[in-house]
């Protein structure tokens, strides 16, 4: 062990210490061997830690000090929408009447929870311009797959069994093709043109009677609005396919354009991005799906309906794709998103988009002289730079990202989208002040200078973190995925 190593909780164990206070055993106890058959009573105890409550709090406080969140500092991670996570959301989610409900209680005893879900659906229907919404999917990828399963059910119900292919632009997030594959489709890549938008000619070439759907993000992952969206919708619809909107991030278009008005038939949202469910270090999220009327019969069951002022879960859905998740989705995240929407109101959500776009454009213009700007036009909520100028100096985009750590920033998304060389993808969000944006831009400009004058300082970064660059090859070649007591 190195002297600077942070102890594992297992290494703090001392037999005899406890950190719990279980309810009393106030009933007569029987011999466990009389209740559980031979061979089924656990013999070797699970090697869990043995520590006191203060040990636990110090351990996790130490770990939290080795972690960067939005509350720690700027987090311009492109396509992830790392905006401020309002604190009222956390308080509302912890109200006992929301936090401590059992999903299988009688409907009459959970009307408040169902009311919140119903009203959230109504809000999301208006925001997306769709006809119905399900809150069941647990995350974005889960929502994508749910939507594609509905596309499949729709075509199959029409006796249209030859539609086996899903079209996906080359700039798409990797989950799009993965979700299509898990839903049983083949994927076909559609090229981008020199402006970073979907190449309409290529789309016309690949679309056909085997097309089930086109999956599209708009604005796309380069932060550019697909101006030809209506023409694309027409091409896909004329061929009999459905148009799917990856609404992982709606931060660029709220109150400016709605997927439903752009010709989309299905949309998924990540409530943990635009709608401030915290990211939690990788989850939990929530990935509701909105659909147009002709797809409503295929929604996962149950659906939530209102009958005579009562909220009812309707399981009688013969054409439904079935359940995609036990119970009704990640309710706790939906509570947070609902609280956020109600905190913002219509004018607030509009301002969110306007400032998100203003901030991104401002940063793009401040950085365009220091880095290559592959697409010189107004961006939406995020933009991409290329580090290819710095690469010629021997400084890779990865090095630039690591150097940003020394300035106290979480780096932008790097090497994505894959169709831009040495890509740096920056998304500031609307909750950051001009001072923060300026300070970050100054750091980026300084790093570009360092790349020219003193490349080693960038190449060898980070210099100030609790740990240096880690040996990822070793981790993969000789995997150590758990602690084991020696």
């Amino acid at each position, binding site marked *: 062990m190195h002297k600077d190593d942070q102890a594992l909780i297992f290494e703090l164990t001392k037999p005899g210490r406890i950190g719990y206070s279980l309810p009393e055993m106030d009933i007569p106890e029987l011999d466990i061997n009389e209740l559980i058959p031979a061979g089924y009573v656990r013999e070797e105890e699970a090697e869990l830690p043995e520590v006191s409550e203060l040990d636990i709090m110090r351990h996790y406080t130490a770990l939290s000090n080795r972690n960067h969140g939005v509350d720690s500092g700027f987090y311009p991670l492109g396509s992830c929408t790392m905006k401020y996570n309002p604190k009222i959301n956390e308080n509302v989610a912890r109200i006992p009447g929301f936090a401590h*409900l059992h999903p299988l209680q009688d409907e009459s005893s959970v009307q408040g929870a169902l009311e919140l879900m119903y009203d959230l659906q109504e809000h999301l229907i208006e925001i997306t311009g769709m006809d119905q919404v399900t809150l069941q999917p647990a995350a974005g990828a889960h929502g994508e797959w749910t939507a594609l399963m509905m596309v499949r059910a729709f075509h199959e119900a029409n006796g249209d069994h030859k539609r086996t292919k899903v079209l996906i632009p080359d700039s798409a997030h990797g989950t799009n093709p993965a979700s299509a594959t898990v839903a049983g489709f083949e994927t076909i890549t559609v090229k981008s043109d020199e402006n970073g938008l979907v190449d309409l000619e290529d789309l016309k070439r690949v679309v056909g009677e085997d097309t089930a759907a086109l999956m599209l993000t708009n604005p796309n992952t380069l932060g550019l609005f697909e101006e030809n969206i209506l023409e694309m919708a027409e091409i896909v619809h004329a061929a009999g396919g459905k148009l799917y909107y990856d609404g992982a991030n709606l931060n660029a278009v709220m109150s400016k354009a709605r997927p439903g008005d752009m010709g989309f038939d299905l949309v998924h949202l990540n409530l943990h991005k635009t709608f401030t469910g915290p990211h939690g270090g990788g989850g939990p999220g929530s990935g509701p799906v909105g659909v147009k009327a002709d797809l409503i019969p295929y929604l996962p069951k149950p659906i939530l309906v209102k009958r005579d002022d009562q909220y009812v879960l309707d399981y009688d859905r013969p054409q439904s794709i079935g359940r995609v998740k036990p119970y009704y989705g990640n309710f*706790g995240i939906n509570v947070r998103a609902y609280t956020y929407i109600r905190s913002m109101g219509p004018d607030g959500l509009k301002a969110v988009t306007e400032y998100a776009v203003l901030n991104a454009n401002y940063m793009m213009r401040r950085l365009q002289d220091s880095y290559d700007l592959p697409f010189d036009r107004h961006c939406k909520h995020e933009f991409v730079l290329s580090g290819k100028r710095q690469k010629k100096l021997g400084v890779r985009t990865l090095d630039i990202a690591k150097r940003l750590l020394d300035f106290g920033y979480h780096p932008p998304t790097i090497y994505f989208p894959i169709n831009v060389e040495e890509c740096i993808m920056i998304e500031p969000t609307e909750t950051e002040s001009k001072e923060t944006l300026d300070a970050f831009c100054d750091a980026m400009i300084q790093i570009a200078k360092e790349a020219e004058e003193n490349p080693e300082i960038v190449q060898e970064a980070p210099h100030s973190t609790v740990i240096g660059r880690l040996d990822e090859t070793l981790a993969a070649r000789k995997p150590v995925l758990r602690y084991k007591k020696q």
Partner: protein
Amino acid sequence: MKHRYLPMTETDKKEMLDTIGVNSIDELFSDIPESVRFNGEYQIKPAKTETALMKELTLMAQKNADLRSHTSFLGAGVYDHYMPIIVDHVLSRSEFYTAYTPYQPEISQGELQAIFEFQSMICELTGMDVANSSMYDGGTALAEAAMLSAGQTKRKKVLISSAVHPESKEVVKTYAKGQYIDVIEVPHKDGVTDVDALKEMIDDEIAAVIIQYPNFFGRIEPLKELEEIIHAEKAMFVVSSNPLALGALTPPGKFGADIVAGDAQVFGIPTGFGGPHCGYFAVTNKLMRKVPGRLVGQTVDEEGRRGFVLTLQAREQHIRRDKATSNICSNQALNALAASVAMTALGKKGVKEMALSNIQKAHYAKQLFKAKGFEIAFEGPSFNEFVIKLNTPVKEVNMKLLEKNMIGGYDLGRDYSDLKNHMLVAVTELRTKEEIDTFVNEMGDYHA
């Protein structure tokens, strides 16, 4: 528009527009064609102030009968358990909850190490070699297990015990449709998987057999016997398991399970109206590189300091794209942290003590019901749930109980047509003798 989440002032805005070289924010949206432009404002509720919104939502929450003000005997996959108070204090450290997936290890060591510890604890409880960093929930984790099995064995049929959680069964079936996998149910006999039926149904076309332990009726499945039958045909042995029960029961790993999946909600995670909970997924070493989702591994930096990274990422969707065998991306990281803190607080002794307490208290309640003249369906060894027969529809009984601030058990007739008027009762360590006695008394004359 002024709002506490939006820091830009009019002066800021003007300076920024000048730098960009436009006159208004509107110009930045000029690339959105007029034909798809949304003009005006959403027809949604107007914004509320912090205080007013808090009040409205508190009142909305009060329309619900929550488990803090009611005594619950409802389980069926989601349980009212002791939640060490420290869990929420750790969870409220916003360095954890406002962070993204730990893609930058140098500033994410806290999250990465916490997940590494979570993986280790799940391995310990399940008796498996490798566990991932979490799945959405127990149901989707089982679906992933079915898909992994089909890919691994190149077989397209999966057998699932009818004593597996009905909602998990439905989720497995939905996913299976996507992968052209047939899911066939093995009947239960007297509340446990029918071994003779399984012998009849299994052959060399079966990719996996999915068993729940303890099963949906609370019964302890004969894993030893089942394993021999399943592995004789080289099918994968998949066990869905309540990890708390494994504090007292022999873990599935000891019985040769290939995959153990389930939900860690039992460890420090509120029932939360069904989510977010915390799926887990554990396998043998042989399947390490087939595991869906994220894995955290240990390594060193240039100076030999121990550190943690996301590893074996070649399995995952963002690298493999359409070749990926799972599309999971976001998981339940924060809830995995909650479960880790709870497992740590309980520790080696507490997890066993709590599991045993569930067995003892449920057994006490079962005996009490028997003494009252109730018939126990599927009598036999069980964990913290059992089934009683009623003479009245379960829904009606539950409505009566609600008036007494009690939440009754689960109506099995919803899923099993031959189990009308059968109630699945859960008794956890939280229930006191007095609560149990009162509950059994209130159930009075409803016995069949």
